[in-house]
């Protein structure tokens, strides 16, 4: 997946080739939370690990009144507070901070973009960044289109020399129509190959390992289909409530916040066909085919195949927590979903008839994300002295977070003269087999963008395809009376009604 810097012969044959061309990253919303918590710690860490070139520079673009030095001090404080690599080394920081610049500017003022343009030219001259730019929109989505237009008007979107790329954060619209409008607004200025829609789930090591697990091992792919798989459960559970995101979450809800992006991407990686190569186009093309093969849940099916919920007060991890409607900033009569469970089908030859169950929620008992592939029961129960419930089907669980790993449940005979069987699990854990901690998802994704590798970023077609699945659900919900919220207590696995989605009287895993 790496893109090599071909013009530098010194790089040839190096084991570590993922060092991008010198470039400037312009961060819109540079004084905001995302920049402080995620972007700057990730960039500093990449620098410290020698994964960024010497001339790498950052321009912070934000309304807050600051000069370069104040911006540098503020970013140092952020790295100290949110970085995970221990104390900041003074000299290494100073060397990194020489490339940090700040422009106190308003995203709606054309003259500020003229200032940005001249600042970027200066940096090109001083630091050899050769016109290469990444524009990172760490701002609310409502500002995306305006900034993109201003970049275009100032001649900053298309490169006379070097390359220009745009990174945007979710949400990518709030329904199919708005996603299309956003994509159209962006595509008037940037070509699709310049646009990097970041979904930090895809930067996680285990999500990437899913591809390796499926396509580098010969034993799984032959049974990865409707003939052997009974159902697939994908769970993304959070223990936290709405925290300080009430304003956003009230408009969004669980379906938009988690399913449209994270879960649909995980689903696509789980179900996709083997790509012709690991190139971005091939991988993203196969994921898109999966999303397009999922029929939207129209009309009554939106009811029979979805369950939504909202948490009431309860206990999570030994702490008493309030219900959603009592959280700060939340409407006391809110009808926002904090939990959603879906049953989807993928209508292709591999998966026809296999239900894919997706669920996500806040204030669930554990924080975890996993994919559970349940295989079909053995066709003949030879061990008839064993109660049927002890003959559980094989289950392959891929844990994405925390404690990343893979476990396989199978049945074994208990030692002794009698033929008693019971399920056992065989575990692989990243942390025990590979002692090193992975790079953060943001480090991986920022580096990939600078390297020009969009494999782990969402394509506009995939974003629209995911909205194409979810928008009919949102419309159906909007036309109905809201369920009696709250309908699950904080610290439980969601509304009891969610079990009704499962076929054959099954129930959700309680991991």
């Amino acid at each position, binding site marked *: 997946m790496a893109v090599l810097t071909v013009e530098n012969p*010194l790089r*040839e*044959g190096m084991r570590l080739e993922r060092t991008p061309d*010198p470039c400037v990253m312009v961060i819109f919303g540079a004084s905001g939370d995302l920049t402080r918590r995620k972007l700057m710690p990730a960039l500093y860490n990449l620098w410290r690990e*020698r994964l960024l070139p*010497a001339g790498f520079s950052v321009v912070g673009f934000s309304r807050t009144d600051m000069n370069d030095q104040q911006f540098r001090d503020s970013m140092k404080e952020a790295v100290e507070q949110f970085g995970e690599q221990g104390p900041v080394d003074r000299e*290494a920081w100073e060397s990194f901070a020489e490339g940090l610049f700040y422009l106190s500017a308003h995203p709606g003022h054309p003259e500020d973009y003229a200032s940005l343009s001249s600042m970027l030219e200066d940096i090109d001259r001083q630091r050899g960044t*050769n016109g290469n730019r990444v524009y990172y929109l760490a701002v609310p989505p409502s500002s995306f289109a305006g900034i993109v237009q201003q970049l275009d008007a100032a001649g900053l979107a298309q490169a006379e020399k070097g390359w220009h790329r745009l990174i945007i954060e979710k949400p990518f619209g709030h329904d199919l129509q708005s996603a299309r409008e956003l994509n159209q607004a962006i595509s008037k200025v940037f070509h699709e190959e310049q646009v990097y829609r970041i979904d930090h789930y895809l930067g996680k090591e285990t999500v990437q390992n899913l591809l390796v697990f499926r396509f580098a091992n010969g034993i799984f792919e032959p049974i990865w289909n409707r003939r052997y798989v009974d159902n697939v459960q994908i769970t993304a559970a959070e223990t936290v409530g709405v925290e300080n995101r009430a304003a956003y979450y009230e408009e969004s809800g669980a379906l938009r916040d988690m399913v449209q992006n994270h879960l649909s991407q995980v689903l696509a990686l789980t179900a996709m066909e083997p790509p012709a190569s690991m190139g971005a186009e091939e991988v993203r093309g196969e994921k898109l085919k999966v999303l397009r093969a999922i029929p939207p849940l129209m009309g009554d099916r939106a009811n029979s195949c979805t369950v939504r919920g909202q948490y009431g007060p309860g206990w999570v991890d030994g702490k008493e927590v309030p219900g959603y409607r009592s959280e700060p900033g939340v409407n006391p009569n809110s009808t926002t979903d904090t939990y959603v469970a879906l049953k989807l089908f993928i209508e292709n030859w591999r998966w026809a008839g296999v239900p894919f169950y997706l669920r996500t929620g806040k204030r669930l008992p554990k924080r975890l994300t996993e994919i559970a592939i349940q295989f079909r029961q053995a066709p003949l129960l030879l061990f008839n002295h064993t109660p049927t419930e002890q003959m559980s089907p094989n289950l392959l669980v891929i844990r994405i977070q925390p404690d990343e790993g893979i476990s396989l449940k199978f049945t074994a005979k208990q030692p002794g003269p009698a033929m008693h069987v019971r399920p056992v699990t065989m575990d692989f854990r990243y942390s025990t*087999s590979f*002692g090193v901690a992975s790079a953060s998802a943001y480090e991986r994704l920022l580096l990939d963008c600078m390297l020009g590798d969009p494999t782990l970023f969402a394509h506009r077609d995939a974003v629209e395809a995911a909205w194409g699945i979810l928008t009919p659900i949102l419309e159906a919900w909007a036309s109905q009376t809201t369920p009696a919220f709250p309908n699950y207590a904080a610290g439980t696995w969601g509304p009891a009604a969610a079990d009704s989605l499962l076929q054959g009287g099954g129930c959700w895993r309680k991991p």
Partner: protein
Amino acid sequence: MSSTSIPADASKVEQELRHLWRQEAEKSSAGPVLCSRTLNLIVYCRNCADVQRATGFLDPIISNHPCRAIVVSPAPPESQEEIHTEVSASCLTSHGGNRYIGRELVTLAAQPSAHARLASIIRALVLPDLPVFLWWRDTRSLGSALFRQLSDLAERIIVDSAGLEDLHADWPSLHALVQHPGKAISDLAWSRLTAWRQLIAQLFDGQARASYLRQLRRIVVEFGNESGNPKVPADALLLAAWLGRQLGFKHPCPAAAEQGAEQHAGAWELSSGDSRLRVELRHGKRPGSGVTAVFLTCGDGRAVFAVSRCQDGKGLATRAELPGQAPMRRLVRTGDESASRLVSSELEILVRDVLYEDVLRLAGELLPALSAG
């Protein structure tokens, strides 16, 4: 973790390891104990003191790579046993808080007369279906009968050419290793150059900078030796050879020392078509052992690129001086360069390092013009 002395017999070793696992499982109050091993690591040490050092290095290596480690050394002269065997196993704790058996250590100290038996025991102790790495810490015995027997078991052999006492005399044995078609070689001296190579390469990233590569006319590699040994360290020779190789220069001809160059250790003129490149090794004044600085100068001398070790020895500083531009400097902490860290990185790789093999060959061509020190 304590070691248990047992008879030198592979089945007894396995039996003792199983016993140790059971003990660990019984001690565990937090659920089952996992067993996780990803490779076999055979470590050959120079002597008993070296076994102590190597065992110290092994703990961090094994936390990254749960494995069965077999540490081999010559038995001390006073030893009565033909092969003295000790076994230990212990649990590690993962980032997720799980306890797991990932550390199995078998220590074997053998009399020279028992080498055939020793090799047969090791062969039986190697875990099947997992890669075998041989870390040979005694560069003087590369090519010995025991080395040949153990290297036959290994997919990858890890050596450290910094330990070669006489480059002229010992280089052929190093070179012989890479001739073996079925073995991959790791050289820790080469691994220590990774940060240097990366930073030198970064100086020429981007089209504008890359154009200076075509104008390079002179490369100086400075080295130091804190032990006072005047000999050229292997990494300096490897770095010079790497630069020549990457830039497409071949056919090294010995060149004369420049006037007043008291620190001269060797110089060559390499050619690529009509272009000539002077490569020079010299004793530097900076503190530290091995490579301490590299200077790359373009034709008219106005563009100079440099990478040098920081005064505190914990990082590298880069400098680019280009016509019409303010000098651009950067400091990068190189982090942990201990043997543990370096070996740990090598254990992640199974394929041959073709670049290293090429560089080793070119370094061999540079050797004749190197002063004996």
